[in-house]
C-alpha cells in the first residue's frame, strides 16, 4: 500500500486493510494462491503468489487497461 501511494505520488491512496478483501477475492477466483509460512521472527504470515491463471488474467487486464486509457487519452486530446 505504501508502495502504491509512493509510486503514484500519493494520488492513489487506500486503507491498507482493504488489501485483504481484494486478495481473498482474487484467491477465490484462482488468480493467486496463498500459504502460511513461519517467519524467522517466529510469527506466522500468509504469502501470496500469482498462479498461471493469475498471470494470464494480469496480462488481459493490463492490455485492457492500456487500450482503455489510450482511448480516453485520445478522446481527451481530440477535445
Amino acid at each position, binding site marked *: *500500500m505504501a508502495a502504491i501511494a509512493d509510486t503514484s505520488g500519493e494520488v492513489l491512496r487506500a*486503507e*491498507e*486493510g*482493504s488489501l*485483504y*478483501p481484494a486478495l*481473498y*477475492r482474487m*484467491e*477465490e*477466483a*484462482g488468480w493467486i494462491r496463498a500459504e502460511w509460512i513461519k517467519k524467522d*521472527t517466529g*510469527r*506466522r*504470515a*500468509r504469502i501470496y503468489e500469482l498462479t498461471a491463471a493469475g498471470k494470464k488474467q494480469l496480462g488481459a487486464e493490463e492490455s485492457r487497461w492500456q487500450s482503455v486509457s489510450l482511448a480516453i487519452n485520445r478522446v481527451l486530446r481530440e477535445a
Partner: protein
Amino acid sequence: MSLWSRISNAVRGERLNREIAEELQSHIEEAIASGRDPDEARRAFGSILRQREASHTIRVAGWLESLLADVSFGWRQLCRNKITSAAAVLSLAIGIGSCVAAFRLIDALLWRPLPISGSSKLYVLSRQMTGLYGKPIEDGYWATPNFKLMRDAVKDQADLIAISDAERMDITWSGDRAGNDDIEKAHVVYVSGNMFPLFGLEPALGRLLIPADDRGPGAGPYAVLSWDYWNHRFGRDPNVLGHSLHIGDQTLEIIGVAPSDFTGTEKGTVTDIFLPLSMNSMATEDRADWHRIFLMLKTGVNPATALEPMRQHLSAVNRAFGSACSTCYRGDTKADIERFLNQKLVFHPAGAGISELQKDYRRLLGVLGLMVALVLLIACVNVANMMTAQAAARAQEMALRISIGAGRRRLVQLILSQSALLALLASVLGAIFAAWSAPFVLSLINPRDNPARLDLPADWRVLLFGFGLILLVVLLLGLLPALRASAVRPVAALKGGEDPHSPRRLMRGAIALQVAFCFLVLFLSSLFVASFQRLENRPLGFSTDRLLLLEAVAGQRQLPVVWNQTAEALRAAPGVNSVAISGWPLLGRIRINSDVSIIGAPPSPTPAWFLNVSPGWLSTMKIPLVSGRDFRPEDTSPGAAIVNETFAETFFPGQDPIGHTFERGANQPINKILAVIPDVPYDDLREPNRAVFYVPFDEIDGKSTPKAVDFATFTIHTDAQDPLALAGSLRQLIAQRHNGLRVSNITTQLDLVRDQTIRERLLAMLAGFFAVVALFLAGIGLYAVLNYSVLQRRREIGIRMAIGSTRTSIVHLVTLDVLPIVALGGCAGGALGFGAARYVASLFYQVKATDTDMIALPTGAILLTALIATLPAVLRALRTDPTEILRNG
C-alpha cells in the same frame, strides 16, 4: 477450488474468522516491527472489524452459513420439546413409510415397465363380448390357430407374440442331476418362438428359444429356464444345459437360461420354465382359448394411426376364424352364434406386463394408496398444527428478528429448515418401515404354497418418489407457519400480541380437514372389515373339519377301478376315518360348466356346473341330503346325477326333480336325478349360488366301457385334529402302490376356504391398521389444539369465572369451540366416503355404503375420540384459578 472452499469454510466459520484475524494482525505487527508508528500503522490499516467482515463474506458461501445456523437452531428447537418432536417424527415416519411401501407395491405390480426392449410399443389384445347371463365380459385368451392367422395378417406393421399364463405344473427331472424321480411343481409358460428375439433378450447361458423351435407340434422339445429358477433350483450350475425334464409324457431338453431380470410378462408370478408354444397339445386346437396375444409395433410405426386399422383388420380375421369353426356351435341357435361372434377387439398397453394379479389387486392397491396418503396428510396436519402453535408462541421472537433487520426470506428459511429436519428424521425411520412392510404385505398376497412374487427394488424410481414426498411434506408442514411467522407485524407483536384468534382459526380449519380424512379412512375400513367378516362367516353348507385333500395325477390315465382301489387302501390306513374321491375339490378354483337340456330340448341359455364324486363323498364332506339317496358303487356317469337346490329351481321349477332326467347337451345320454342336496359354494365364496349337478366318479363311454381318469382328489376325513399330520404317510402309501397314481398337491379343505378370503383379509387388516393410526393421530391433533386454545384463553376463562360464570358455561365455551368443526369435518368425510365407496364397490361383499351401521361405526368412533381428546382441555379449563389469573395476568 472456489465453491468447494467457500462451502467448507462455511462449515468451519469460527476457525476461518480466527485465521483472517490472525493474518490482519500479523500485517499490523509486521508494519510496527518494520519501524512504523503503531498508531499510524493502525490508522492506515483502517477498521479491522470491517475488513474482517468483508473478508469473511468473500471467503464463505453465505447462504450455506445461514442455513447451517438455521438448521442447528431448528435442531435446538426440536430438542426443547422432545416428546412432541418424537411424536411428530414417529407419526410422519408411519405416514411416509406407508406411502413409500404402497408406492413400491403399486409401481412394481402396475407401472414398472418390463425389462425388455420396446416395452412402450407392447400391447395386449383382448376382446369384449357378451358372456353368460348377458353380462359384458372381456376375454384375453386366444386359440393358437387363430393367433397364427392374425400374426400373418398384420406382419408388415407389427409382430404378434403368444404367451400363456404361468401354470403350476408337475415336472420331474431325469438323469444324475435330480437323482430321484420325485415330482415337483414349477411355473411353466408357453411362448411363441419370436418372443425372446422380439423382446431383445440375451441368454445368461446357452441359447434362448427362436422361431425355428416353434415350427410345429413336437418340433422343439426344448426348455429355457428363468435365471431365478436356475439360481434356486440348480445353484447356477452351468452344467444344467443338456439335461432333460419331463412334463406328462413329454421330455424336454434344457438349452439355456434367460437373463436375470426377465421373470416373464405375468407380473406377480416368476416364471420357472419357458417352453415353445407348439409343445402344448392345445396349440393345434381351434376351440382352446389358452394363451394371451401381445402385439409389438415395428419400429417407425405410429401407434396413433396404425392401431385402429390394425384392430379392424384383426377383427375381420378373428370373425372369419370364428365363423369357420364347424365344431364350435353344435346345437346353438343362430342368435347365440351371432352373439358369440359379435366380438370387439381392443388393445391395451402392456409395457408393464399383464396378469390376473394386476386385475384382482388394482382396486385394492388404489384404496391402499388413498388410505396411506390420507394418513400422511393427517400426520402432516398434526405436525403443522404443532408448529403453528410453536410459531405463535415465538411471535415476539420473530417480531424482534424482523425489527433488527432479518429478511422475510430468512425467516421462512428458519422455519422451513425446522420442518425439513423433522421430515428427514421421519423419512429415515419411514424408509426402514417401508423396507420391511412392502415385502411383508406382498407375502400376504396369494396362498402360502404359491405366494405372489414381485421384484421390489429400491432404485431411482423409489428414491425419486421418496424425495418428492419429503419435499411435499416439508412444504405442507412448514410453508403455512413460515408465511404466518414472516407476516408478523413487529410493532403489534412487540406491544403484546395482535389478533390472538388468528392461529386458532387456522388450527381449527386444520382440525376439520383432519376429521374429514379420518372419517373417510374409518368409513372405508369399516366397510372392508365388515365385508371380510361376512365373507368369512358365510355359511358353507359343508364341513371343513379334519379334511385332508390329496390331489393326485396319473401320467398315463388310469381306470376308475384303480382310483377306487387306492381309496380303499387309504381307508384301511390308521387314523383315517373316511375317504372319498372327487374330480377336484370344492373351492379349488376349478369350475367347468356343461350344457343342460331337458328331454331332448335345445340346451338351456344358462349352463350348469358339475363335479364328479364317488359314493360317500357327500357324507365325508358332511353335506346332508334334502331328499333322495347318495350314489352307490354301481351308479355311473352318464346315468345318475345328484343336483343342488338351485339346479332344481332353475330346471324343474315347482316340481320334485327326483326321478326326472336331463342330458348334458343335445343328443347326449340321459341322467336320472337321484337326490337333491343344499347349495354349497362351488368354486368361489363370493359368487351367488350356481346350479350344480354331481355325477358319479365312475364314467363310461357310449359302449359302456369305463373311462380312464388322469387327475382327481382324494378327500380324507382324519381322526386327528390336524389332517396334515397324516399327509406324509398317506402320500407314501399311494406311491408304494406303484399303480401310476402320484400325489401332486397336498392341502386341506380349511386352507382352500381360507385362500378364498386372502384379498379381503389383507384389505381388512391393512384398513384396520390405518384406521387405528388415523383415529389416534386425529385424537392427538384435537387434543393439542384444544389444549393450546385453553392455554391461550386462560385469562378470558379466569375473568369469566371471576364474574360468576358457571362450570357448565365454561365447558360449553371450550367444547362448542370444536364440536361444529368436528361435525363439519365428519360430514365432509362422509361425502368423500360415499364417492370413494362407489369406486371400490367391487371389493365389498354384502355390504353397502348406505348401511346404517357402516355410517354409525365411524361416527361413533370419531365422537368417542373427540370426547376423550376434549376431556383434558375441559379439565384444565375448569381447574383455572381466577384469583391467580387476575393477580398475575
